């Protein structure tokens, strides 16, 4: 018999074994197909409630989860800080207890503080999915990137992946590094010294570069990350134009990678800064495929985490 998915929450890629990752990606294939049908809805999670709890601005991730839940027939409820009691001074603990009383089946949470979803998961009986916490982790992004890579290149194992841009502030980079290393990928992270610290090499078992060319040479995947203007002051970057000139990925830089290489970006893109429009819209770009994959992967996760039996079984394996 096949083993059931052994987790109640998805907080970090670190908690997943390679087999868990493969199980999520395989299930995502089924949900990818659902989104391409004439009727893009299945009755699977009828009667289940999923709360989107977003303490940080997000359009695409929140929308992606919302569509994922709706396509599974779950009731999706959006709570955003601007309109919630957090503004009125409620603590995270009290928010948790209030949510609990509404009997949700899954809480999807984004927070600017690293570890906040783990705290909430420890307080709630339902499953919690981390939709991005501070600079710590963004596991669903790493999973949808892995799904995209596997679909486009046919495998995940042993690839050469270059991640370019603002690594220091990026939870996307961290989650991707952890996932890709689990599959024996060679991961090069590259960016200016202010945005990629040398300790990253040891912490994530990856190669650190401060120049594009050696990082991109022979790469199967080129992943560009957004310069997070909101998280950095002028101190770290002299100007967008200078950044684009030294670290922007354009056709000339992409030519260092393999001819078959794919270009990824988690969005939103700063066109002309970290990625040239010719590359963003070029034949190697899989940026919009990533968006489509995101809905499928999030459907798979809601499916795997929302059932009552799944909770019982994950609790059992947690108590050993």
């Amino acid at each position: 018999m096949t083993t059931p998915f052994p987790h109640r929450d998805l907080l970090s890629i670190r908690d997943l074994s390679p087999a868990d990752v493969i199980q999520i990606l395989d299930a995502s294939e089924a949900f990818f197909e659902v989104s391409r049908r004439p009727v893009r809805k299945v009755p699977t999670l009828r009667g289940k409630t999923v709360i989107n709890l977003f303490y940080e601005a997000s359009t695409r991730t929140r929308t992606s989860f919302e569509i994922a839940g709706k396509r599974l027939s779950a009731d999706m409820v959006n709570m955003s800080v601007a309109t919630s009691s957090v503004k009125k001074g409620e603590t995270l603990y009290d928010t948790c207890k209030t949510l609990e009383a509404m009997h949700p089946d899954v809480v999807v949470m984004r927070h600017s503080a690293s570890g906040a979803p783990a705290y909430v998961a420890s307080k709630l009986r339902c499953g919690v999915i981390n939709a991005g916490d501070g600079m710590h982790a963004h596991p669903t992004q790493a999973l949808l990137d892995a799904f995209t890579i596997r679909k486009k290149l046919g495998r995940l194992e042993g690839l050469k992946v270059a991640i370019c841009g603002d690594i220091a502030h990026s939870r996307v980079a961290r989650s991707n590094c952890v996932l890709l290393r689990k599959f024996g990928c060679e991961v090069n992270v590259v960016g200016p010294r202010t945005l990629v610290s040398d300790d990253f090499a040891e912490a994530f078992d990856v190669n650190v570069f401060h120049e594009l060319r050696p990082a991109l040479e022979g790469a199967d995947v080129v992943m560009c990350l957004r310069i997070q203007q909101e998280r950095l002051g002028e101190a770290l970057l002299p100007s967008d134009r200078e950044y684009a000139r030294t670290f922007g990925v354009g056709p000339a830089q992409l030519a260092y990678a393999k001819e078959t290489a794919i270009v990824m970006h988690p969005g939103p893109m700063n066109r002309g800064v970290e990625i040239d429009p010719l590359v963003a819209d070029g034949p190697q770009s899989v940026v919009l495929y990533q968006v489509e994959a995101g809905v499928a992967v999030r459907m798979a996760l809601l499916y795997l985490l929302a059932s009552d039996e799944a909770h019982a079984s994950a609790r059992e394996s947690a108590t050993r």
Partner: protein
Amino acid sequence: MAGGLGYGEGVQVLLDESAVGLRWKEVAAEIDDVVERPAVVAIRRGGVALASELVRILGDVDHGSVDIALYRDDAATALPDPKIGPSVIPFDVVGRDIVLVDDVLQTGRSVRAAIDALLDYGRPRRIWLAALVDRGGRELPIAADFVGFVRTVDPKKRLRVESREADAQLHIQVMSR
């Protein structure tokens, strides 16, 4: 897992390869007689081998498969199926006569789920059901139009339909334990 020779204790061959092969050809002939321009849809995963055999006998017919994991009536309460796969319906179902194919018909719940899945692709003219074995034990008012074998089997026993490809032929047998 037992496969080929050397089955574990208590495992019996209920229907051997030649019996299944002959009977399934007859079922195909019945379908060919009764159903005009059939399209064959397997219920994953048990019906896949039988459906492809049917397609081979019927010749050039539209065919596909449905995965019912998302349509099960216990989908939100039971353990999620870790082996869930995509449905593949590469033709327009609207107005068609569709033959659903499954290996073992018991409770009827899989068939109910498969019908719902199929209806999400459009409105067929008629949905038929072909099953290799009807073992009894219905929990929903569902009946097959084409049945290979009717065998009343102890509800505690499990039936397993095994198929293997050899000499460009599909060999299917039914085991019980």
